């Protein structure tokens, strides 16, 4: 979601694949999805990287569809219990579901654009509380990830399901708890003058 030109994260995020349907015939490029056809026929669906999509869809050469991580099925699962959805499964271990979602919201027209935005915001808010609770429980403690602490098994699973953005937030929260703990436990007594 970083819009800085030099942001590596956002460059990598643009590799997310989105389903596109060709509205026109394209000659000679039939190989790009690994197929045997020489040409692409109108109506063919293909997964293309996000960075290609704006140019192609602006010219109406392709029709962009909603990718699987934001499908109706996923949205229903989130509405039922946002915390139990494993976002990392949807976008891969290093993927960012929120970042990808925002890119889709920017790309799509209404009402899909707002629908995705709302889904993202609600999911984020609902998962945020657990995220912070876990960060503070594990912050500063020397506990291993696999240990069943106060949050036990459920906690471990939740943490595994975080997307990259949430993991970054988790680390930030942990770091700050850790720093305060270290300060608290170190005496600031003036040494002899």
């Amino acid at each position, binding site marked *: 979601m970083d819009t*800085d030109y030099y942001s590596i994260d956002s460059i990598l995020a643009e590799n997310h694949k989105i389903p596109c349907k060709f509205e026109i015939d394209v000659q000679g490029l039939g190989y790009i999805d690994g197929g045997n056809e020489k040409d692409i026929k109108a109506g063919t669906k293909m997964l293309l990287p996000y960075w290609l999509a*704006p140019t192609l869809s602006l010219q109406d050469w392709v029709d962009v569809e909603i990718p699987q991580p934001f499908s109706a099925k996923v949205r229903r699962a989130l509405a039922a219990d946002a915390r139990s959805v494993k976002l990392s499964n949807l976008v891969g271990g290093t993927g960012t579901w929120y970042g990808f979602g925002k890119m889709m919201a920017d790309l799509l027209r209404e009402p899909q654009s707002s629908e995705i935005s709302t889904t993202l915001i609600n999911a984020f808010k609902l998962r945020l509380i657990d995220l912070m609770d876990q960060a503070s429980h594990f912050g500063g403690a020397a506990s291993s990830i696999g240990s069943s602490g106060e949050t036990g098994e459920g906690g471990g699973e939740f943490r595994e399901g975080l997307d990259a953005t949430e993991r970054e937030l988790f680390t930030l929260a942990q770091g700050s708890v850790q720093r305060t703990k270290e300060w608290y436990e170190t005496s600031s007594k003036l040494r002899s003058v």
Partner: protein
Amino acid sequence: MDFSDSTLDDHLFGIDTDENPIARLIRAWIDERHAPDLLVFQAALIDDLMQKLHEQGLVVSALQSDESTTEEEHLRITLVKTDMERAKFLIRSYMRVRLHKIEKYAAFILQTTEEQQKLSNAELVHAQRYQQMLANHFHATVLDALPESTHALDQTFPDGTSMITRPDRDHPVFVHARVPCPDVLLPDGDKITLEQGSIHLLRYRTIDTLLARGQVNLV
């Protein structure tokens, strides 16, 4: 229990007790630390402190080498020296925060007059040198091996993306109201009142004018 007579908050947060230059420096440093944007350089404050530090330094040297200096005077000298070291730490911290932001936004600053006015002369020179150094580096390592048409470092693309990094003025900040403040307009259209003493988490853009005027400070 009334804390007003025993805490620094009076000095830091009481807009009418600004005479203490250390309190002002702390506020300037912390404001600069949390603000995504570069704030106006506190030239008068820094000059004043540097001058005082210089004078104190002379007095301290003179007294320390004077044999007739009493034990009581030595004690006071020690306290003055400690105070001076603390002040220097604050000044260095203030300059370091600014330097970080200046380097990060060097290209943007150099193409925006408004931004340049916030820098001291020395800072401006640094920005220019840094930018030049960075450009040379890009050229030497990458660009010179690429076609001329890709050499620009200041392009803006059709989708609005710019090669020049700008401060994010929507960055959230914790704001403390030092005095009763005029209402501010939120991005969603609502107005809120920042009561004196209150702390809010707001977008920087919402309060930047109040901050520039000293009516709020960042915490």
